C-alpha cells in the first residue's frame, strides 16, 4: 500500500526506529556469520587428515572414472574465509550490504565441505549424485509449476500429492495396456486433469474450503490407489508392467566427456521440466493469459469488473494444473522402478508444494528449489548406500526445514497471490 511509502518518508525525517532496527539486525547477522566462519575453521582443524576421494564418470556408463582427491580441510578453510568476509562486510556496511549474495557464494563450499566430511574418505561417485538430483527435480518442478498456475489463478492447490499418486497409477496401467511409452504420461495427464476439474468443482462451485478439498483428494487418492493396487495390480501383474521411460542420451552433447553423463543423459521428464518452466514463465509474465491469470489470483474483482470471466479462467487453470501434476506423477511409476507401488509418491507432492513456496510462486525459482531438494534426496541416498555419516533421514528433512525457514520469513518475505483460496462471487 501507499502507506509504506509514506511511513518511509516519515522515518527519514525523524530518524525512526526502523533504521535502528535494521542496524541492530545487520550487527546480529555479522555476529552469526562470524560464528559460522569460526566453526568452519574449527572443522578444518578437526578434519585436517581427511582426504576427499570423489570421482566422475568420463564417458559412457560404466566407463573410466575421473578421480578428484583433495584434503577436506581446504574446502572448510575456503568456506571459513568467505563467511568471514561476509561477516566483515556486513559489519562495515550495515544494512546496505547484500548478504544474500555472499551466502550464495558460500553455500556450495559449505555443502561440499559437509558432504566430504561425512564421507570421511570413502570414495564416492558424483555423477550418480548429480543425475539423481536432476532426475528427482524434474517431476517435482513440474508439480510445483502445476501449483504455481493454480495458485496464481486464485485456487489453493495442496492436492499435488494426490495427483502424483493417481498419475502414477494411471500411467502404469495405461502404459501396460497399450505397451507404448507415451501412453503413460498421457494417461497421467488426463487423469490429473479430471482430478483438477473435480477440485475446481468442489472449491469454485460448491465453495468447499480449498484446504479441506485438497486434503480430501489427497486422502482419497491414497485410498483408491492402494485399493486398486492390492485388488487388481497385485493379482493381474500384466496391468502393472509398464514400458519404462529411462534416461535418454542426447545425441552429440551426450557424448561429451563428463558433462555428457552429468547433464545430457537424463530422464525425459527432467528435460520436459526445463521446457515447461521456460514456457510457462513466458506465458505467466508476458502474455494476455498470464496477465489475466495473475489478476484473478491477486484481485479477482479487478479482473471481473473489466469483463474477464474469472470463474472460467480458474476452471481452466485448475484443469491445466491437474494435467501437469498428473503427468509429473506418471514418472514415479515409469522410471524403471517396477511399476506402481503403494504410496509411491512418498510425499513428493508435498515437496513440490514446498518448492513452490520456497520459490516464491515463480517457476524458475521453484525449479531451483526442486534442485536443492533433489540434491538433499540424492545425497541422502548416496550416504545411506555407502553407509557413512548421518542417518539419511536427517537430509530428507531438509526440504521441510528450509520451507519452514522461508515461510517464517527468516530469509526475506515471500508473498503468495493475495486471493488464493478465497472463493469469488461473480455478479
Amino acid at each position: 500500500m501507499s502507506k509504506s511509502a509514506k511511513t518511509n518518508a516519515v522515518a527519514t525525517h525523524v530518524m525512526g526506529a526502523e533504521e535502528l532496527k535494521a542496524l541492530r539486525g545487520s550487527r546480529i547477522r555479522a555476529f552469526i556469520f562470524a560464528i559460522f566462519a569460526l566453526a568452519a575453521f574449527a572443522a578444518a582443524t578437526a578434519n585436517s587428515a581427511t582426504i576427499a576421494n570423489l570421482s566422475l564418470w568420463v564417458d559412457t556408463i560404466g566407463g573410466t572414472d575421473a578421480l578428484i582427491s583433495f584434503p577436506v580441510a581446504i574446502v572448510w578453510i575456503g568456506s571459513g574465509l568467505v563467511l568471514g568476509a561476509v561477516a566483515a562486510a556486513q559489519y562495515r556496511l550495515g544494512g546496505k550490504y547484500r548478504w544474500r549474495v555472499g551466502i550464495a557464494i558460500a553455500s556450495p563450499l559449505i555443502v561440499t565441505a559437509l558432504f566430504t566430511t561425512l564421507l570421511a574418505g570413502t570414495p564416492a561417485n558424483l555423477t550418480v549424485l548429480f543425475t539423481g538430483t536432476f532426475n528427482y527435480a524434474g517431476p517435482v518442478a513440474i508439480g510445483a509449476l502445476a501449483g504455481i498456475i493454480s495458485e496464481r489463478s486464485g485456487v489453493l492447490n495442496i492436492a499435488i500429492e494426490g495427483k502424483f499418486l493417481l498419475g502414477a497409477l494411471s500411467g502404469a496401467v495405461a502404459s501396460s495396456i497399450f505397451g507404448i511409452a507415451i501412453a503413460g504420461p498421457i494417461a497421467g495427464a488426463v487423469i490429473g486433469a479430471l482430478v483438477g476439474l473435480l477440485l475446481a468443482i468442489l472449491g469454485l462451485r460448491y465453495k468447499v474450503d480449498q484446504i479441506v478439498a485438497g486434503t480430501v483428494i489427497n486422502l482419497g487418492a491414497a485410498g483408491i490407489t492402494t485399493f486398486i493396487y492390492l485388488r487388481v495390480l497385485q493379482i493381474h501383474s500384466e496391468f502393472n508392467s509398464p514400458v519404462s521411460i529411462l534416461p535418454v542420451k542426447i545425441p552429440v552433447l551426450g557424448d561429451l566427456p563428463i558433462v555428457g553423463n552429468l547433464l545430457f543423459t537424463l530422464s525425459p521428464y527432467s528435460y520436459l521440466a526445463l521446457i515447461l518452466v521456460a514456457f510457462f514463465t513466458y506465458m505467466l509474465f508476458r502474455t494476455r493469459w498470464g496477465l489475466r491469470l495473475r489478476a484473478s489470483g491477486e484481485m479477482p474483482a479487478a479482473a471481473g469488473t473489466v469483463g474477464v470471466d474469472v470463474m472460467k479462467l480458474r476452471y481452466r487453470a485448475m484443469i491445466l494444473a491437474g494435467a501437469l501434476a498428473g503427468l509429473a506423477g506418471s514418472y514415479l511409476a515409469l522410471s524403471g522402478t517396477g511399476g506402481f507401488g503403494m504410496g509411491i509418491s512418498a510425499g513428493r507432492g508435498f515437496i513440490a508444494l514446498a518448492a513452490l513456496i520456497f520459490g516464491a510462486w515463480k517457476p524458475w525459482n521453484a525449479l531451483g528449489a526442486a534442485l536443492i531438494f533433489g540434491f538433499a534426496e540424492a545425497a541422502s541416498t548416496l550416504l545411506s548406500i555407502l553407509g557413512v555419516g548421518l542417518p539419511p533421514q536427517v537430509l530428507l528433512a531438509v526440504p521441510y526445514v528450509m520451507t519452514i525457514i522461508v515461510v517464517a520469513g527468516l530469509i526475506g518475505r515471500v508473498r503468495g497471490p493475495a486471493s488464493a483460496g478465497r472463493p469469488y462471487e461473480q455478479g
Partner: protein
Amino acid sequence: MSLRLELREITKQFPGVLANDRVSIQVERGKVLGLLGENGAGKSTLMNILSGIYKPDSGTIIVDGEQRVFRDPAEAIEAGIGMVHQHFMLVPVFDVVESVALGAETATGPLGTFDRAAARAKIVELSKRYGLSVDPDAKIESLPVGVRQRVEILKALYRKSDVLVLDEPSAVLTPQETEELFGIIRGLASAGTSVIFITHKLHEVLEVADTITVLRRGKVVGSVKPKEADPEQLAEMMVGREVQLTVDRGQAKVGSVTLSLKGVTVLNQAGEVAVANVDLQIRAGEIVAIAGVQGNGQTELVEAVTGLRPVDSGEMTLNGESLVGASPRKISDAGVAHIPEDRSRDGMVKGMTVAENLMLNSYHRKPFSSGVTLNRSAIEAAAEKIVKDFDVRTPSIHTDIASLSGGNQQKVIVGREFSRTVSLVVAAQPTRGLDVGSIEYIHKRLVEQRDAGAAVLIVSTELDEVLALGDRIAVMFEGQIVGVLDAKDATRERVGLLMGGAAV
C-alpha cells in the same frame, strides 16, 4: 441535446430489500449527472446494473436510443460505459500499464503475447490529452490514492468509454484533490464524455453537476438543476424530512487535561512508523477532531490510545496516569469509551445477540457475572434499558446483531460505551456508512458526552464532520500532527491544505 444513456423503470430486489424501485435516469452527451442519495438509497445497486455486474429484475437500459441488455461487465464496457468503483479495482502488485490494459489487452503472436509497448504508448497519449499525469511504470501499491483514481479513469478512457461513472469518488481525496478531480470531470465533459457522479455530499453535486437526480430508499425523488437548488432543499429530498445541516452545540466548557500524548510513536503492522512523535492534549469538556486522508496514521493512533496496539515510544497519560502498556480492558475500565473505525470487525461480534453485544465491556463485572456464570436476568434488564435509552430499533434484545441496520448497530456500540460515566471518548469514523438520521443522532450523543465533561477525540475523514463537531481540529499527515486549529480559524481550505501536507 442528445440522450446518451437512459435507464427506464429499473427494479432490483434483494432478499428483504427493494434496492431499486422503478428508477429512471437520463444522461445527456457531454453532461454531468449528479446522483445524490444517502447510504443505502440504491445508488451503487443502480450503477452495478448499469455496468453489467447485476441483472435488473425489470426495466430497460437504452444506449443511444437502442435498448440493451448487459449480461456481463464486458458488454457494458463494449457499450462505452466505464465504471470507477469506490473501492478501486486495481491489482496492487501490477504496474499502471498492466492495470489499465487488463481485460482490454492487445495480444500478438500464437501465444497471445501482451503488447506492452503499444498499451504503454496509448496510456501516455491518453494521460497527456486529458491531463491525467501518472507514471505508467509505477506499481499501483506505491501510488497515493489520488493517483490511483486517475489510473481508474485512464482505465475507462483506455476502453473508449464515453459514459464515465464515478462512485463516491471524493471519499478518499483531500478537498484540493477533489477540486482537481472536478477539473478533470469538466474537461472530460467538454470533450463529449457523459459523467455520472455518485455522491452523498451536497456541495459536490452543486458544484460539478449539470443535473442532479436524488434517490431515496430505492426510488427517484426528483431531478433539479443546481442553479435552482439549494443545500437545504437537496438534503430534504435526500432524507425525506427537514434536516439540520449543522450540529447544535454551545461553547465548550473546558476543564483540566484528560488525555495527554507526548512524543508518541506507533508502528504499523509491517513495523513501519505510522504515528511519528505526536504531541496532543485533550481537555475535559472539549471535542478534538482529527482530520486527514485515510492512512495517515489515524487508525494506529486510535489503536494505541485504546490499548489495541503498543506504543513504541513516548508518553501517554489519562488523568495523569500512564496508559503505556495498559491492556484494552484496563483502559476501558479507566473510563475510556471506544467507538471503533471498523464497526463489524472491532465493534461487535456478529452472530451474538444485541444483549450479548451490549455486555462486551462489562460482562465480567457484578451484577452481570457472579465469578463463573453470567447473570442472565441482570444482563437482560440492563440491555432492555440501553436499547430503550439509545433508541436501538431491534425486534428484541435476543436478535442477532448482524441482522440490524448499520445505524442501529452503531447505536448498540454507542449505547454500550456511553451507558456509564466516561472521562474520554475515542470515536473513529463514528458515522461512516450511516443514514442522515443516525448521523444526527450519533453527533448529538457525542456533544452530550462533551457537555457532561468528557474529553472527546473524534477521528474522521469526512471534512464536514470534523468541521461540524471539533472545538479544536488537528490534522494528521504522514503520521504527524501537522497543525491544530481552533474551530473559529478552521476553514475548509486551511484544513484541506494541511491534509495535503502543506505547511500553514
